[in-house]
């Protein structure tokens, strides 16, 4: 510092020094506060807008709720359920009896009872008991639940034992009956509220701080029956913009972000300490063709549409390589997936001749597709329509609409074919082929888009087969039959892209589940 003759700093040097010091001080205060070693931050794309764990089936919501309301089973994609809170289970006469561990506690201190588990399941499937739950779609064969004694609960089902296992294995979690009764809103039957007290599960983490729409902070539950989870603090927040999620990862505000868009992949790769991890997801994208509308009533025509589309090309060009071509209605890893089937090859000549064979040469069709729902969906649909349009004997337009229009066309069923040809996606979340096919191909299925007696029968038959191996073979036959009958243009499986800090030991899962207890640092 410059000084005057008497040793005091000059006014100028004083100002420079204090100015610099205050800049340093301010920037110190303002500097990015990265999470500490013991805190792990996960940035989702959608923050749960409900605190009731049975209310929705959105993957982002499960990522949060599973840590608080632990699943009764450990589910690995493509494998049968493994016991977790349930120690053992036994099937008999269209029902299964589950024996629960006796050392499981809710975060409020109550012991878990069979009554709680039965109540939770009833709350999901019976709209009289709980709120209208969309999870009911994945519990199609489960008919009811009751407590046999304190630690034994009985689920009744109408289909095969294995099917029931995939269903309750995927959805069963436990809420305390007493607590839920106290918390439920009288009007909607849902748990509502905006404090940490509106969560009470048996999971390894309990909620310590909850800011609606912004942040939920979890800490390990001291009386948890199982292994201590890996992080002292687990924080979930959300950003709807991919660029925002990636920026949070770059600045160290987040340790893991989901749904990185292909265009942001390079940014993550360039960031210090961060990397991209991908897995082919369960979410497949396809174009149903309702087969009671012309020209889709012809199998040759439907197959022609499959030959006309260049799936590999679309994946390379439109999805920057982040996808896998599909050969059948369900993805690999799902029970009943048929590994012997290949995707339809791109063969415009074959397509053109099949169109002639169908008698629909000169057909004019329109593909209706959503925008912003799936990875680059409108661009994919545009390319699909272009490729069909390039056939000499078919002309195809594309109509990009609000997702609601597509969703309505899908759920309108077979008898409404105002929009017979559209693009949609479906995740086989139960891990069993049944969830991927019965809704679409069976009479009365929730989203029937294809009417074919043979296929319907084959699916129906699979529901009643008790031997798991035999049932798997039957489902493989169903998938083979579906490929042949071409009810959809089979497009691709989306790749799930994650941005993760390099030192995090974790591999993404096909079912897009994120469990902290599968991670380590």
């Amino acid at each position, binding site marked *: 510092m410059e000084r005057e003759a008497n040793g005091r700093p000059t006014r100028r040097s004083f100002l420079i020094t204090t100015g610099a010091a205050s800049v340093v001080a301010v*920037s110190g*205060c*303002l*500097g*990015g*506060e990265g999470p500490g070693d013991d805190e792990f931050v996960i*940035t989702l794309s*959608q923050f749960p*807008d*409900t605190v009731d764990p049975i*209310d*929705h*089936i959105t993957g982002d919501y499960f990522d949060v709720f599973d840590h608080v309301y632990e699943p009764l089973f450990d589910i690995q994609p493509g494998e049968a359920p493994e016991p977790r809170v349930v120690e053992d289970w036994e099937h008999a006469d269209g029902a299964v009896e589950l024996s629960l561990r006796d050392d499981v506690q809710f975060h409020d201190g109550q012991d878990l009872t069979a009554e709680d588990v039965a109540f939770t399941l009833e709350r999901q499937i019976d*709209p009289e008991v709980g*709120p*209208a*739950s*969309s999870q*009911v*779609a994945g519990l199609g064969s489960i008919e009811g639940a009751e407590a046999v004694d304190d630690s034994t609960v009985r689920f009744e089902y109408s289909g095969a034992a294995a099917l029931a296992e995939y269903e309750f294995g995927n959805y069963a979690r436990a809420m305390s009956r007493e607590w839920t009764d106290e918390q439920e*809103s009288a*009007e*909607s039957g*849902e748990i*509502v509220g*905006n404090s940490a007290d509106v969560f009470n599960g048996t999971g390894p983490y309990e909620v310590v701080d909850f*800011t*609606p*729409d*912004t*942040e939920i902070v979890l800490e390990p539950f001291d009386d948890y029956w199982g292994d201590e989870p890996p992080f002292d603090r687990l924080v979930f*927040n*959300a*950003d*709807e*913009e991919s*660029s*925002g999620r990636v*920026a*949070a990862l*770059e*600045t160290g*505000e987040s340790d893991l972000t989901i749904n990185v868009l292909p265009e942001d992949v390079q940014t993550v790769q360039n960031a210090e300490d961060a990397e991209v991890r991908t897995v082919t997801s369960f979410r497949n994208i396809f174009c149903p063709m309702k087969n009671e509308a012309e020209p889709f009533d012809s199998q040759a025509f439907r197959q022609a549409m499959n030959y006309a589309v260049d799936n590999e090309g679309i994946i390379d060009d439109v999805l920057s390589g982040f996808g896998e071509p599909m050969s059948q209605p369900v993805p690999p890893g799902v029970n009943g997936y048929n590994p012997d089937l290949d995707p339809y090859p791109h063969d415009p000549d074959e397509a053109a001749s099949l169109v002639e064979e169908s008698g629909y040469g000169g057909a004019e069709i329109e593909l209706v597709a959503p925008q*912003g729902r799936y990875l680059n969906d409108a661009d994919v649909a545009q390319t699909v329509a272009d490729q069909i349009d390039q056939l000499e004997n078919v002309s195809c337009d594309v109509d990009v*609409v*609000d*997702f*609601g*229009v597509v*969703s*309505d066309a*899908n*759920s309108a069923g077979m008898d409404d074919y105002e929009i017979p040809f559209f693009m949609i996606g479906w995740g086989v979340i139960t891990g069993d082929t049944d969830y991927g096919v019965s*809704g679409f191909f069976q009479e009365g299925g*929730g*989203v029937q888009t294809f009417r074919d007696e043979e296929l319907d029968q084959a699916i129906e038959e699979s529901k009643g087969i008790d031997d798991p191996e035999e049932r798997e073979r039957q489902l493989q036959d169903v998938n083979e039959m579906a490929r042949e009958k071409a009810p959809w243009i089979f497009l691709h499986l989306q790749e799930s892209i994650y941005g993760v800090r390099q030192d995090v030991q974790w591999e993404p899962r096909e079912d897009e589940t994120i469990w902290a207890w599968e991670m380590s640092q």
Partner: protein
Amino acid sequence: MALGKFLVKRLLQGVFVVWGVVTVMFTLRAVSPGDPANLIVGEAADPHLREQVREQYGLNEPIHVQYADYLQGIAVGDFGYSFQSGRQVEAMVIERVPATLELAVAATIIAILIAVPLGVISASRRNEPADYGATLFSLLGISTPNFWLGLMLILLLAVQIGLFPTGRRPVGLVEALTALVTTGYATGLVTWLKHIILPAITLGTYFTALITRLTRSGMLDELGKPYVDATEAKGLPAALIRYKHVLRNTMIPIVTVLGLQLGTLIGGAVITETVFSWPGLGDRLIQALNARDWPLMQGIIVFIGISFVLINIVVDALYASLDPRVIDE
């Protein structure tokens, strides 16, 4: 016309405007495609369940009955239930108001702090480099799109330099102040400040540019008036003349614009809030749009409409009390 009568007239006009907003929103909902029941129960749900939900939410009623029900509800402050979360819309709107207000007020403060001195300097040094600089600044501020500016600020100041966080405010002003009072720790307040600076700059830039121009032109008008010459002749320092006498007279139209613009800021925060994941009304509106959550969407837009109307009435009342001639216009 007395002031009271004038205000009643304005209030009635305001009710009419809000009714218009409600009706336009309701019509848009009626003509837009998509079955809300799908949203509530999921696409693959049992048809009976879907029917039950339609019944529960009154979606089976004829459109005029739904409209009458909706108007009746709004009249008593009941905006219905969100399709997606099942919660009451008014609660979902109200809990987002503080964040938006914080942002709007912070943007206004930043705008005043920057724009007023800049406008004064610009007017005092007319046709000098400082004036050109300020004019260029306001031109850039007015023509820069919000979302681009926000992204650039994140890229530069958050990602590259690491000075600020990228968004996702973890704590609100009220909580931060409560913590400061009860525990004496200012950590929450510092966190809040760090989070609000970039969004407030983003939202306030257009506003800053606008006020700079207003201040400059207002100052130029005033500087040409005889009283300025008189004060100069008395030998008062130039800075005192500008900041004490001239600026005070210039502030009257600026305050009016500030009031009117506050409404614009509340509505215009949509993009800024989305870019910074700021948990305000705009962010919630985008979520509602994406989810086609009509009751929530309507609730937010009607709320913004009501805010506009109220702010306008307050500004009108202020005006009328300042200048009684407007009552007779």
